[in-house]
């Protein structure tokens, strides 16, 4: 008699065998890279776009492209005998604990050579700590919290700027406006309550103090709130010369709608990207954000100075049906920077890739960013990732700061 239990055990065994047979050979013919984003939940769209951006970079590395970008010409990684990169995606649902668990699974089960992620700074925090424990390099594509690279991690690398660099650029810009005769005396901080918002506000509070801007409102709000009416009421009462929001997409949309409903027109807005870098925010409430300035790492009008921008954007758009933005451009670059290092390491060994990442030296012209170059300090931070400020004019972003990258002068104050 065949019992159900026997069938189950036998079935499991057969499945395991089939699984072993199906598993791709893990020889040097491929390098596995783990990619962690929120593919479900409130930030899922960022994850979906990130996947397209990173797959665009993957295509540039694995296939032959006539572009002046690292590893574009020829196929695969010549340093590993033409090996191709294979990506394994994981969904962290914007939850730091799920991020930790997924990173561990990618490292121990999928045997990834390196990790890329994670958008939410709070998740990059736990993922990078896990990567460190296993000695696997983590390339932080798009989390901008400054505390991330100050934890003495040896396997953490961030090619893009962090919020101190971004905020410094924002205050440099305000200083420049003052020098031009604009009266800017007060700022209002409005930030979400996770590590991203809190770190951003800490830096902005400090810079405002140092440079003589009065902080007239300092509002930490609960992210994904059903209503921001009371918060906006306080912003309206304070009526600062510049509103400095640090928000993800949901809150950016709700903030804008609520401001309009309560009849609050901020004199000017200078945003810490994220939600204010997402096109969907402008698709829904763009008319109310005319003249908003956001810090950024990228703008399509960079094409004048970075010849690859147009071609990469076309490749990305074919997949994602939208243009590259602040987030997806950094996600794209993260895989290229990692691939460049793996290629030079000539190995999938964590220590060797780490050493190669440390020695990275990619000139700005071989990126799609306004960066001077990619070269990491001992803390894993690229110190030459110059941020830019972008202004929403009509239906697109225009680079307005610094002068070296600007395509047009900034319109000040904003005219929403």
């Amino acid at each position, binding site marked *: 008699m065949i019992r159900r239990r026997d069938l189950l055990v036998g079935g499991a065994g057969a499945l395991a065998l089939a699984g072993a047979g199906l598993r791709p050979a893990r020889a040097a013919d491929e390098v596995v890279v783990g990619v962690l984003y929120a593919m479900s939940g409130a930030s899922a769209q960022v994850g979906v776009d990130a996947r397209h951006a990173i797959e665009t970079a993957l295509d540039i590395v694995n296939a032959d492209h006539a572009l002046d970008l690292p590893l574009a010409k020829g196929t695969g990684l010549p340093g590993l005998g033409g090996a191709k990169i294979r990506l394994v995606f994981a969904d962290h649902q914007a939850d730091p604990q799920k991020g930790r668990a997924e990173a561990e699974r990618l490292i121990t089960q999928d045997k990834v050579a390196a990790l890329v992620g994670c958008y939410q700074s709070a998740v990059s925090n736990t993922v990078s700590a896990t990567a460190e424990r296993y000695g696997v390099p983590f390339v932080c594509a798009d989390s901008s919290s400054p505390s991330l690279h100050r934890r003495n991690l040896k396997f953490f690398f961030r090619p893009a700027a962090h919020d101190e660099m971004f905020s410094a650029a924002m205050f440099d810009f305000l200083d420049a406006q003052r020098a031009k005769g604009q009266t800017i005396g007060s700022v209002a901080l409005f930030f979400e309550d996770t590590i991203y918002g809190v770190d951003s506000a800490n830096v902005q509070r400090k810079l405002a103090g140092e440079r003589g801007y009065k902080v007239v409102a300092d509002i930490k709000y*609960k992210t994904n709130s*059903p*209503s921001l009416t*009371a918060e906006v*009421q306080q912003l309206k*009462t304070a009526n600062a010369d510049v509103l400095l929001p640090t928000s993800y997409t949901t809150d950016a949309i*709700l903030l804008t709608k609520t401001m309009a*409903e309560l*009849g609050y027109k901020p004199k000017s807005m200078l945003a810490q990207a994220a939600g204010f870098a997402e096109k969907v925010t402008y698709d829904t409430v763009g008319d109310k954000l005319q003249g908003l300035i956001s810090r950024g790492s990228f703008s399509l009008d960079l094409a004048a100075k970075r010849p690859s921008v147009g071609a990469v954007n076309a490749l990305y758009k074919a997949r994602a049906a939208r243009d590259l933005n602040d987030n997806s451009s950094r996600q794209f670059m993260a895989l290229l920077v990692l691939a460049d290092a793996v290629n030079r390491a000539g190995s999938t060994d964590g220590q060797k890739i780490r050493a190669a990442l440390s020695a990275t030296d990619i000139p700005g012209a071989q990126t799609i960013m306004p960066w001077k170059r990619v070269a990491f300090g001992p803390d894993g931070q690229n110190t030459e990732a110059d941020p830019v400020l972008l202004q929403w004019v009509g239906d697109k972003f225009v680079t307005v700061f610094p002068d070296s990258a600007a395509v047009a002068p900034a319109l000040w104050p904003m005219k929403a």
Partner: protein
Amino acid sequence: MTTQALAQVLASGLLMGLIYALIAVGLSLIFGLMDVVNFAHGEFLMIAMYATFGLVLATQLDPVVLMPLVAALLFALGGASYLGVVRFAMRAKANQGMVQIFATFGLAILLQGVAQYLFTPDYRNVQNTWLGGRTLEVGGVFLPWPQIFGAVVSLAAFGGLHLLMSRTDFGRALEATREDQGAVALVGIDRNRVFALGWGLGAALVGLAGAVLAVFYYIHPQVGASFALIAYVTVALGGFGSVAGALVAGVIVGLVEAFTAVILPPALKSVGVYALYLAVVFVRPQGLFGRL
């Protein structure tokens, strides 16, 4: 704080509170009828918002006009949820409460997943509506028309529900079924039919709320979650199953939330609501209007 600012907080809290009440009442109705907490309530709201968005795109009519259609669609969804899922969960011989909770929870996750698959996780927004972006200013206090309209719809829905429950055979059948499920069968009332209609009615009410919200809120597969939590505390505070309780508690939640955000850092604004709920639990664990 100026009188004007105080009036603004009061007005905003009141308007949001009435909308919270409209979101919560369907949940309370279903619970009162059959002691089932619908954990997919937030997802019903989300579906209603997408339905509004889709119908606006398809018909080019205003959400205000489409509201009855959205409510009808949600009525069908609610009835189908009962007949397709909850009815079977109620047949469990043991741990029936748990089975019901997980069945509706599963339904919630399923609806979220289906929405993300069909509609993508992009944020949507109903554009160019009659009410959208319009604001009534009274002495420096700003009252957004979509919220005023939502508050009026909420009050009308509560009025209509009261009439339905007290003046119609269907209302009496609902009331009788909720009093004694076994006895109603003896007088020829089909329990399953009443439950299905009850679920339909509960979902139709959240359908109205979804159509109202779609005018001034972003639409996203996860949008239900933040409102569902408020709906649960509203129902618990007002008393499980009490329609009047949902109305009063919704307004209280709206006001407490608005005033907490003034007194405490806004990041802690939901603390006030839950602190109040805990205080009510000490005195009246059944909620303000709950029956013992």
